């Protein structure tokens, strides 16, 4: 069993994505042996009204709920987010949130964001934070969107200890307080591996040792990314089968409250 916590449907504003429909993504998942995936709208990253992207995803996954787990992209600095959140949870049955603070022009410490995260905690929804949408060096001449600073995330984890977080598309955790239990942060977050090294610096291995294997989850970034690099990381990681199974799916299943 493999659960990918980092997948997308829809279009991205700055380059074409393939395999970006439910059918296309499922075919790609089948080719790679990936059973289930958390998906959110790629279009909602640049839509002003992100709810339009959530509606598109809700329609796409309707017939594939057994395999595609929709997350809502909510912008707490945009009018009507409370209604959007309610709709995504209660009408669309979305199972978590994805936040793009830099793309959507707010900070994780802003009161509106804290309100959203606390509301997510009330609803028992995990909050996924992509550190980036794409590599900075290839950015369009139109935009300059920095990565979400890890320090800002640290502040949010402390401010909302009851919330549960999923940190995706990130790197450099091992050298930050997020990468060690010794920092005393609430254990309310998991780190996804798609950008972490599994050889040379071996950040995955360091995090398994310093943070514990229950805090790492598998993700690919499909269809922005090829899925194989993340799969290879798991294959070459020096870890027991039990640890690999935790990363491959068990930790994600726990985060999503999936029946085992």
């Amino acid at each position, binding site marked *: 069993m493999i659960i990918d916590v980092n997948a997308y449907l829809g279009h991205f504003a700055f*380059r074409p994505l*393939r395999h970006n429909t439910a059918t296309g993504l499922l075919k790609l998942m089948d080719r790679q042996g990936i059973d289930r995936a958390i998906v959110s709208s790629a279009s909602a990253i640049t839509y002003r009204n992100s709810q339009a992207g959530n509606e598109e995803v809700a329609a796409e996954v309707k017939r594939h709920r057994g395999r595609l787990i929709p997350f809502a992209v909510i912008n707490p600095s945009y009018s009507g987010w409370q209604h959007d959140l309610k709709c995504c949870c209660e009408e669309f049955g979305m199972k978590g949130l994805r936040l793009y603070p830099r793309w959507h022009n707010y900070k994780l410490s802003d009161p509106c964001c804290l309100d959203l995260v606390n509301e997510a905690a009330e609803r028992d929804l995990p909050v996924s934070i992509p550190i980036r949408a794409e590599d900075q*060096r290839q950015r369009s*001449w139109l935009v300059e969107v920095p990565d979400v600073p890890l320090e800002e995330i640290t502040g949010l984890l402390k401010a909302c200890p009851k919330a549960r977080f999923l940190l995706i598309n990130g790197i450099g955790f091992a050298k930050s307080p997020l990468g060690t239990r010794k920092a005393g942060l609430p254990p309310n977050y998991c780190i996804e591996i798609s950008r972490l090294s599994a050889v040379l610096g071996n950040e995955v291995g360091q995090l398994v040792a310093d943070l514990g294997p229950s805090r790492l989850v598998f993700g690919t970034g499909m*269809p*922005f990314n*090829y899925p194989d*690099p993340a799969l*290879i990381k798991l294959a*070459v990681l020096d870890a027991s089968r039990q640890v690999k199974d935790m990363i491959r799916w068990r930790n994600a299943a726990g985060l999503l409250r999936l029946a085992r």
Partner: protein
Amino acid sequence: MSQSSKEKTIVIDCHAHLEHHSKPDWQDNDRRLLQAGDKLGIDRLCCSILTPRRPATAAGFRECNDWTADAMKRFRGRVLGYCYVNPGYQREAIEEIRRCVEDRGFIGIKLYNEYTCNEPVVFPVVELAIELRVPILQHAGHAHYFNKDQPRISDGGHLAELSQRYPEAMLICGHVCGGGDWEWTIKALRNAPGVYLDTSGSVIDEGVIEMATELLGADRLLFGCDMSMTAGVGKLRAANLSARDKRKIWGGNMKRVLQARGAR
């Protein structure tokens, strides 16, 4: 990686680096690179060592190449060496390339960002590479903003221009997946058949390998990692290409480049 043919696929990482010896853990890091190669099925790693600060002095690049030569002995058959020079030190650079290629078996030349590759100061190096029948691996990238840290970084357009001037040169455009807008780079190289494109870099954007193959042809792509090991292997493993094309990219093309001088 899966072998989709009974024919042995040779895997050559055309873009790797060993550690500068000012790093206290350089030996461990070099060993880790070889171990990663073992785990990932990489037969050979084409390596250079760069000075920590650029522009490199002549003494600085000579020292780096001495260490590369040592590594070629320590990891015989696994580590192949690029001779790194700063073309600004023209006489020293030419002497160093001859020393490394003719006397020590280096397989190519590594140029970084001291000069844009189409500047006249680089031409003597290119002419010597042609004479010695070795490739030049050129650090490259194209961003849509001014790169203040690398004001003279080369891009696919510069390499295409250089190739037009020296069509017999074997030029390698470095790390298409670590140098900014890869779509721009691939398109810039479309009409430059003398330029190979190295697939290395940490970016694993779905479709990059297929687009490069479609526009440039599989014969012009060289597998590389540039130390992003699982990214390098994973993107080529994932690409929707024929087994024949993949074999060329994994190492067949680089083998052909190396054979130009007689290396095996």
